[in-house]
């Protein structure tokens, strides 16, 4: 990637411009690559290393509440002493206690189910938007983004008012006569699914929309012309072509949903087990920074490693296509 950009940058500048233009272009080319890497380094890798370091430490009644802490004044030997105190005990502890394993599993399951429903609901929305007349598309896009203008917390609180036994939904259903006893939705998994699907739907719709909008509708006509009924044409043409959008949308929903803390806390009640909530408890209630850091590191690995494999598989598939 770096090489191609550097190689093309000089040739992009007109031949008439002397040497100076070429190295300037090369420099800008390099800068353009450095910026995202610097961003990743400062805002992702460094914080991750700090968290990882804490996860190898022990709890201590101190400020900050763990030891060892690096003390640069102690010199090299002091640092070495600190390193020797590091251990993977916290990780062993996580595997020992079924609470954590269960929390991880249940988070992944809840996130997966929510992602599935978000896709199910998001796809028709995105499809409708992409097929709408070009003049109304900006308005529809605006409507999808509009909820972001209100605080996320307030919107989740609003769902309590809708879902609770004497809430809007139950009142409405009883009024229409569909049910005579209020449904218990709040403080169940259903409420969590509703909350996650609602909150993350835009993240599903936007990448789907951009994939579907690029698609040439005459492809569907061509498929039909060759004897393919509309439903079959959807699976053979639209779906594979929307795949990049589907993957992006699912990752954008699944990843934050796995670590979601606010929604299970507000809508899921006390008995739901999700890793985000567990992390919060370890950190703020138990003040066990090392264990909660270990929880965070494992969560990260759980999400990053499959994603890397996935990306590699995609790159390979593309390579073969060439």
């Amino acid at each position, binding site marked *: 990637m770096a090489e191609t950009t550097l190689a093309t940058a000089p040739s992009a500048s007109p031949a008439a411009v002397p040497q100076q233009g070429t190295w300037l272009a090369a420099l800008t080319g390099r800068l353009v690559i450095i910026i995202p890497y610097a961003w990743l380094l400062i805002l992702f890798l460094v914080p991750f290393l700090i968290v990882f370091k804490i996860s190898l430490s022990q709890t201590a009644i101190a400020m900050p509440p763990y030891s060892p802490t690096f003390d640069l004044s102690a010199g090299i030997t002091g640092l070495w002493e600190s390193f020797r105190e590091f251990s993977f005990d916290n990780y062993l502890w996580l595997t020992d206690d079924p609470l954590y394993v269960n929390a991880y599993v249940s988070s992944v399951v809840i996130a997966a189910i929510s992602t599935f429903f978000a896709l199910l609901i998001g796809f028709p929305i995105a499809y409708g938007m992409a097929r709408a007349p070009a003049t109304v598309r900006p308005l529809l896009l605006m409507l999808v983004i509009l909820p972001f203008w209100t605080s996320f917390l307030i919107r989740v609180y609003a769902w309590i008012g809708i879902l609770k036994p004497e809430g809007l939904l139950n009142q409405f259903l009883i009024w229409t006569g569909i049910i005579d006893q209020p449904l218990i939705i709040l403080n169940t998994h259903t409420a969590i699914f509703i909350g996650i699907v609602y909150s993350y739907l835009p993240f599903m719709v936007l990448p789907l929309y951009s994939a579907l909008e690029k698609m*040439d509708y*005459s*492809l569907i*006509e*061509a*498929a*039909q*012309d*060759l*004897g*393919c*009924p*509309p439903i*079959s044409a959807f699976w*053979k*043409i639209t779906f*594979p*072509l929307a795949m990049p959008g589907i993957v992006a949308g699912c990752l954008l929903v699944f990843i934050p949903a796995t670590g979601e803390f606010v929604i299970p806390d507000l809508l899921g009640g006390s008995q739901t087990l999700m890793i985000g909530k567990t992390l919060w408890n370890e950190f703020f209630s138990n003040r066990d920074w090392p264990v909660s850091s270990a929880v965070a590191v494992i969560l990260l690995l759980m999400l990053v490693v499959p994603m890397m494999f996935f990306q590699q598989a995609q790159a390979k598939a593309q390579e073969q*296509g*060439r």
Partner: protein
Amino acid sequence: MKSLGSIRRSFSPWTDPAAKPYIVFENVTKKFGDFTAVNNLSLAIYEREFFALLGASGCGKSTLLRMLAGFDEPTSGRILLDGQDLRGIPPYRRPVNMMFQSYALFPHMSVEQNIAFGLKQEGMPKADIDKRVADMLKLVKLEQFAKRKPHQLSGGQRQRVALARSVAKRPKVLLLDEPLGALDKKLREETQFELMDLQQNLGLTFVVVTHDQEEAMTMADRIAILDKGQVMQVATPAEVYEAPVSRFVANFVGNVNMLEGTVAERSEKTATITGASGAQIRVENAGDATAGSTVAFAIRPEKIKVSSRKPDGAANVMEGEIYDLAYLGDMTVYHVRLVDGQVVKASALNSSRITEDPLSWNDKAWISFAPDAGVVLTR
């Protein structure tokens, strides 16, 4: 050209009153909002015919094909295929395949998979599909590109894939929307003859859209000239060229000189037309022109003879001077300015290497033509 000539000459079902047309457009109108793309159009196309729709951009050619393929329904009127009204029949049930103007190749499928798509829909056995795909690849000379994706092909190669994909199913009717637009001149000419061969060998009915009149003349049995969603004339290439029915058609197909005037005298067969400057033109085949009406005498450049001396015995002779001339190798085109100021184009084949009677700029010249060299147009 091969054996095509002889088969073609004997093929003219439209002159046979007993022959039943295969595709019929009956007073078809198509409106987009309040814009009329196709206006009360009627057409009959016969089985195994190579039919060309010729017209300027935006005149409704693609719209006609799309209605036949089933992507658009006519606002009013009927389209019949083999006697069956097509209204309400979805595209995937029509025995019609289309080659799209934009190709519409499936970007996620290889060339092979694109061509096999329609065959798989039919449920053709795998071995037969493989064989048919191989045949098609050979036909369009893309054997070594079978595994490529469309985005790895050139424009002309993509066009050939689109062609192969639409022919693969051997549909009863093949609709081709500008099938050769992206090809260079040489490949284009080759492919024209390949298309004609294909149509002959498979016995298919082809409806091809083009705005290249030469292409239409080369390939088609009959040509429909369209303008603003209406048919101007349907006829064989020779008829369209030699006997256009209106000023529009005459102008649209090939080069033409229009000598405007009024009919001074009319007998059963002949007529005399008085031009603006008072010059008289004697013509035969005056058609339906009545005495006193305003008409145009349309005559092709190659039917006009240019000479430096006043020719004897010619029916129509006019005086002028050479205004411009272009030597094109095989022929020379003269622009002669007549005494009344009108410029007439005339072309002469350079059948000998050295002309005995060379004409140059501003030379005095006479043009002459026979009474039946052109046609009288009232429209």
